[in-house]
């Protein structure tokens, strides 16, 4: 089991010589993408609906934006955290929310560092912001039809706790991000482990049945999960 000393020293010499950068800085992650219109959207919506998630399929961008605003208003959201995501681009979500008088902040670590002046201050500020946010809007890196699951990679623009602290989580995904089953996402997950310190699979709102077997939502994580699927 233990390597011979010669092998250990040899490999250490190679590692020292390479001086490789940490693996997660090498390239962006590419998630599997499926052709549109294979029925994945319907299966995703049914599976997520069955565990209490809400799914919307807006016909166009204008409808998607209107839906976001509608959900934010329904919860009288004053503070919204934004996480960068593929399916969020081009919608002008931040501007739209700000026009509606809602404080919308992207929780990108580097931007907060610049603003706050130090890493430590930025960490504290982001934590406080997320703990007091009414809602978080994110993308997803992949989704699974069979179970209605979102897969999110943590990173500079997506703190681990960003989709766990606020009471409402709204995610935008693109229909071609939905793979049929968990087994289809396995090689993506394996690769993702090299890129992100934390990968989270989210299937519905936070839930417990610990008191008298009654299913109750929103115990520690978000009590509501909304998913908007863009075509």
């Amino acid at each position, binding site marked *: *089991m233990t390597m011979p000393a010669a092998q250990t020293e040899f490999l250490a010499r190679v590692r020292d010589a390479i001086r490789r950068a*940490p693996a*997660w800085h090498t390239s962006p992650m590419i998630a599997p993408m499926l052709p549109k219109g294979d029925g994945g959207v319907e299966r995703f919506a049914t*599976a997520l609906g069955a*565990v209490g998630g809400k799914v919307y399929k807006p016909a166009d961008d204008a409808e998607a934006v209107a839906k976001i605003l509608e959900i934010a208003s329904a919860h009288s959201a004053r503070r919204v955290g934004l996480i960068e995501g593929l399916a969020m681009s081009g919608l002008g979500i931040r501007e739209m929310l700000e026009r509606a008088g809602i404080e919308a902040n992207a*929780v990108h*670590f*580097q931007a*907060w560092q610049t603003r706050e002046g130090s890493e430590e201050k*930025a*960490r504290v500020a*982001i*934590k406080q912001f997320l*703990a007091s946010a009414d809602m978080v809007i994110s993308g997803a890196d992949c989704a699974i039809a*069979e*179970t209605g*699951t979102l897969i999110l990679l*943590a*990173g*500079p623009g997506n*703190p*681990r*706790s960003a989709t*766990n602290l606020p009471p409402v989580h709204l995610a935008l995904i693109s229909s071609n991000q939905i793979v049929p089953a*968990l*087994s289809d996402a*396995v*090689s993506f*997950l*394996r690769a993702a*482990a*090299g890129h*992100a*310190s*934390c*990968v*989270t*699979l*989210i*299937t*519905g*709102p*936070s*839930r*417990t*049945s*610990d*008191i*008298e*077997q*009654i299913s*109750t939502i*929103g*115990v*520690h*994580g*978000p009590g509501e999960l909304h998913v908007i699927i863009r075509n």
Partner: protein
Amino acid sequence: MAKAQFLERARAPMANAQLQAALIAATERLLKGRENVFADKEMYAALRNRGRAIRENVLDHLDEYLNQFADKVQSAGGVVHWAATREDAVRVVLDIAKRRGVKLAVKSKSMVSEEIELNHSMLAEGIDIVETDLGEWIIQLAHEPPSHLIVPAIHHTKESVAELFDKRTGRSVPREIAGLTRVARETLREQFLSAGMGISGVNFGIAETGTLTLVTNEGNGRMVSSLPPVHIAIMGAERVVPTWEDWAVLLKLLTGSATGQRISTYVTTITGPRRSGEADGPEELHVIILDGGRTHVLGTKYRESALCIRCGACLNVCPVYRETGGHAYGWVYSGPIGAVITPLYEGLDKYGDLAYASSLCGACLDACPVKIDLPRMLLELRHDQAEGNGTKSWLERLVFRGYRIIAASPALYRLAAQAGKIVQIPIARRGRISSAPPPLAAWTQGRDFPALASRPFHSRAAELGLEEKSK
């Protein structure tokens, strides 16, 4: 002697009507969910075979997979601690807590942490440790051990929970479940945000990438691994899996068997501490790999007990567990799996009677997602005790020795049956014996004994068209 302990502990729960109803409701709910998820029998059979093969392979090569796992955890920036004993594991946690000056630790549900009695040791050192799974928090407030692998506070009602929360918060909390859940959210939220350390178990450790997986529905597993500056994950050495493919199979079997979910709400996969450029996640990630008696079992006829993925399905189907609940088993693990591993880990002399807390009906074997033959091991444990000294009474030995002589000879057997029919005359009524004289009285306290038939089966064999064979 040991025999009386399980029965003693079972008495109170069996007289508790609320608990009896809750046990039935909970186990039925979990079983129904499991049936739904695995409705496709063919698929389930294939998944189960695959799961068994994966777990067998893990145990066959456990040293190699553990080594690979530890290497990968370390190259991702985590620190691995090898704990041969429970005391070793506790010491690692305490050392880190002291070095970091931790005053408060938050913990997500972990059976291994119960095994090492971590809370007790932390509190003894003046470090506060708070359970954050709602069920675990309830029983921590009540100073009780868990009574079910998956639903630890199965024995509590909303009224008893409300009383505990009143005491904890110093105010009068709502008496309905949604309100109580809100109280838990608010109270524990403060703890998550201020804790100096997060502690969790590990459902599976993936060797090929050094990834830890936590499975929760509440989101507390995410909190303890993202907010505090230190995360300590304690893993039973057998919980390693080779690849992500293997992980996907076992994850399905785990959540389907445990709670009847296709997947749990949150599956958190962690590879190393936070990396540069990340706003949260712990600065330090420690993985404690615990032996704690596991390797001792691996080379024995009890090896397959280490295949267990801690889903709790065997508890839900067990006719004994469903009557007694978990506390009767006396240690951390209950139900059929508890009846097997408790005497193995804690001593046959102390917990040998658990091997008799079973009707050997085999429902646990049928329910197990990795086909652990629990009835066989329960019999082996009984055998080991019978072979050991002094665990059986001289009377029982005498009876069985006599039975062996009589049953080996057709003539003696017939004679004994005739004698038995005469002896039973004063106590048999309508083919049943409802109260037998000592030492059989204990048996008939809770059930009838069938009386010997007026005509024995072997004398009817000819008219039933069966051939009577004798050696």
